[in-house]
């Protein structure tokens, strides 16, 4: 944690005492009267001018949210109103979400940012009202005439600042939409709000620089092909050292049966790299004919936090590369927003993928009919099928030092319904598994607090507030069951929850599902395993006889 970030005890105290509604205190002003105050820790750094230029986005300039004047284009108001009008006609959800909210309040205490900050504008209903009030005030007759009386307001520069603060204080996790009686999805509002702000050059570097990188090099980190290969090969060496087995990934190999795409965080970020090792061990174990692409070396899609066009542009590489390499289908690694894009957007944007085949597991012969059109399978689906068909030799006792709980990542839970597959795998390969409280898992899972491109160092205070609800549930199972590992199937989680755990529950580490699979696999020709993939010592148990239950 960098200097200047609040200490855990101070932040905890602040949450406990200042959290407005939860503590029964009400702000003395209407939300429309509350000032928007930027201070270090509550905003992400704006995009560098050269990045905006590379993207061809409008209004590149040097600025910071701390400035009084944000140097908006002269006709900024016209731009926003025209764009809002245009988007309303392009997206029914937006119109509905503007019109149907009854402010019943069911969503109010469902947002992790609200729970961790008590800021009323973090109640999903008010986050949407930030936009809805302008829709009323500028587009509806009643709002134009009666204005404030009916919750309408005019678009001002102050509103733009407010949008920037709160549309980048929403992680598009969709938890509120589970509870909304009309299914109003704040993620849609936030996505639209950010899209509008891009038109004024109001955006953050942490999202747009990865977009530029991904376009050029194929991954968010901007890693060029030779380095990408080199890094994966260094993981191959680590695997060899720990297990005595050499795994053999290939790169850009034509004629492979399967193209494997995972977020680049699994290749470069600790602890994601252990998950990558797990994938490679698994593929070696079953003799999978797969290849990894350097051109399409990113599962994630920061374009999806930008505009529909940018999302499509980055995502297109998956199908293009699958076609070029002549694979039969695509297997996708563990990632949250990547799977939102793959499951709900990819086929619509970049399909149909007629050049691919309906995915069939080459090991078990199981057809993945739920992916028959998109032709991309989630690795948890793939591995669950392997385990069910008893195709893996493993010993769960190799994970006996791990006492884990499972964090449902927002998008696999609420945009895919992928809930049982990872649990099935986890229960097979780990002997100590404990669920967090029921209102904090599955479709009601809490976001890590840093998703949708907000995982920056400068944003740490807000992130830790946002991550508090998740961390608090982990703390519960840590206290009750001595849980020491938080398993997740999201690359962003592996980075952000690690920070949140280090801050809130320091005794708990964060692991990927396939890291634990890799730990448990009994590989042909392996040396005696004394360490897990992190090179932590295994607990003593009688090695030898492979036990796979």
């Amino acid at each position: 944690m960098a200097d200047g970030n609040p200490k855990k005890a101070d932040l905890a105290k602040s949450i406990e005492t200042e959290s407005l509604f939860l503590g029964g205190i009400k702000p003395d002003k209407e939300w429309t009267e509350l000032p928007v105050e930027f201070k270090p820790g509550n905003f992400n750094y704006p995009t560098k001018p050269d990045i905006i230029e590379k993207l061809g986005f409008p209004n590149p300039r040097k600025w910071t949210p701390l400035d009084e004047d944000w140097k908006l284009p002269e006709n900024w108001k016209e731009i926003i109103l025209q764009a809002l009008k245009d988007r309303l006609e392009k997206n029914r959800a937006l119109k509905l979400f503007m019109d149907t909210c009854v402010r019943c309040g069911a969503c109010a205490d469902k947002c992790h940012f609200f729970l961790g900050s008590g800021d009323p504008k973090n109640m999903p209903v008010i986050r949407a009202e930030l936009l809805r009030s302008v829709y009323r005030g500028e587009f509806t007759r009643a709002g134009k005439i009666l204005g404030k009386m009916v919750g309408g307001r005019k678009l001002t520069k102050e509103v733009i600042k407010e949008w920037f603060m709160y549309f980048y204080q929403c992680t598009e996790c969709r938890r509120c939409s589970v509870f909304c009686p009309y299914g109003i999805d704040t993620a849609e509002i936030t996505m639209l709000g950010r899209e509008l702000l891009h038109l004024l050059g109001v955006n953050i570097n942490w999202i747009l620089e990865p977009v530029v990188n991904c376009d050029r090099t194929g991954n968010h980190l901007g890693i060029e092909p030779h380095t990408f290969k080199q890094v994966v090969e260094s993981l191959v060496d680590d695997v060899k050292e720990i297990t005595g087995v050499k795994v053999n990934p290939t790169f850009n190999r034509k004629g492979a049966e399967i193209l494997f795409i995972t977020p680049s965080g699994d290749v470069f970020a600790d602890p994601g790299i252990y998950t990558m090792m797990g994938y490679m061990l698994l593929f070696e174990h079953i003799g999978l004919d797969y290849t990894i692409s350097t051109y399409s070396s990113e599962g994630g899609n920061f374009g999806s936090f930008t505009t529909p066009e940018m999302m499509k542009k980055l995502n297109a590489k998956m199908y293009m590369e699958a076609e070029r390499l002549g694979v039969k289908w695509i297997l996708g690694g563990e990632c949250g927003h990547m799977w939102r894009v793959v499951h709900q957007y990819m086929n619509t944007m970049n399909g149909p993928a007629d050049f691919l085949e309906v995915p069939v597991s080459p090991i078990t012969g199981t057809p993945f009919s739920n992916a028959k059109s998109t032709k991309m399978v989630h690795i948890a689906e793939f591995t669950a099928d392997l385990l069910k068909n008893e195709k893996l030799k493993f010993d769960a006792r190799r994970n006996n030092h791990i006492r884990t709980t499972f964090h449902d990542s927002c998008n696999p839970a609420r945009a895919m319904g992928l809930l049982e597959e990872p649990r099935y795998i986890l229960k097979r390969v780990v002997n100590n598994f404990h669920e967090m409280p029921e209102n904090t898992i599955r479709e009601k899972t809490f976001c890590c607090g840093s998703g949708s491109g907000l995982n920056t160092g400068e944003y740490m205070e807000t992130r830790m507030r946002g991550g508090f609800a998740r961390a608090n549930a982990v703390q519960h199972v840590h206290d009750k069951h001595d849980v020491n590992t938080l398993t997740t199937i999201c690359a962003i989680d592996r980075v952000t929850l690690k920070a949140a755990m280090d801050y809130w529950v320091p005794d708990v580490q964060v692991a990927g599902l396939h890291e634990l699979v890799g730990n448990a696999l009994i590989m042909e020709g392996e040396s005696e395993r004394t360490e897990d993939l992190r090179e932590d010592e295994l607990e003593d148990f009688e090695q030898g006889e492979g036990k796979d239950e």
Partner: protein
Amino acid sequence: MKILSPLILLIILILIAWVGTALAGLETLFGLVIPYVALILFIAGFLYRIYYWSRSPVPFRIPTTCGQAKSLDWIKRDRFESPSNLFETLIRMAMEILLFRSLFRNTKAELKPGPNLHYGSNKWLWLGGMVFHWTFLVIILRHYRFFLEPIPFVISLTEKIDSFFQVALPILYLSDILILAALTFLILRRIFGGPVRYMSLFQDYFPLYLISGIVLSGMMMRYLTKTDIIKVKQLSQSLIHFDFTVPSGIGAIFYIHLFLVCVLVSYFPYSKLMHMGGIFFSPTRNLANNSREKRHINPWNPDVKIRTYHDYEEDFRDKMIASGIPLDKD
């Protein structure tokens, strides 16, 4: 202000109807003209709103999944929380529309010392909402007796059930008691419910007051002032048969009731009350979660320039050769 001004508006509306009929004798205006105008405003407004929504496409398939999706055969799926086909989706929507499924999930977060977050069950809003909407429906159905001759069996059966707890004459309808209780709850929770009060607007209080006014004036006619039902039925028959005659002497309280109904009906399509139509349209609820199985079409799928592999290889050719990555063009 947000709480009182809609009440003042309601009082003004009541006064308009009272002055208009009891003092000015404008019974034709309040008995015929305004109801017709209100009906036209309602139908036109409702249809327009549906058209306004429908003309925007649904670019992406974005259901919120609230349970296990269809996956491998042996994984037990949650058909109605993560529907995979039209039938299952219809059931999900029926549960949402008829039983308020999502509201039933509601929890209440509480911050305890530590700080520790606790989530308790919180079904009061669900209960209040269910009671309000269903009794409102029963009451509307009961009113069909004024328009239909003979009274259909369904309507009389509803009435029978509704008056199950009859204790005295005139029949005391259960729905009258329940809707009053529900309205009281819904109003009080807005006024005293911290966050809900904070987010509430004029237009959140006004319909509640208006409907309360309608219910109370209706109950007054039934239980207190004894409005002449025969004359009311004459008027309603006149309305549906376009006779344009208004029986005299129905009494101001009836016209207040009718006028408030007209206000509600005309206000409906231009307000949040359109959640009634909107709930059928919500893309997070009315789409099957089958987007990997069946391609969803976006009519404005944008054309974007994609960086091709060819360009990528051109840029990194030497580095790729050096690290032994196969190339398309040697």
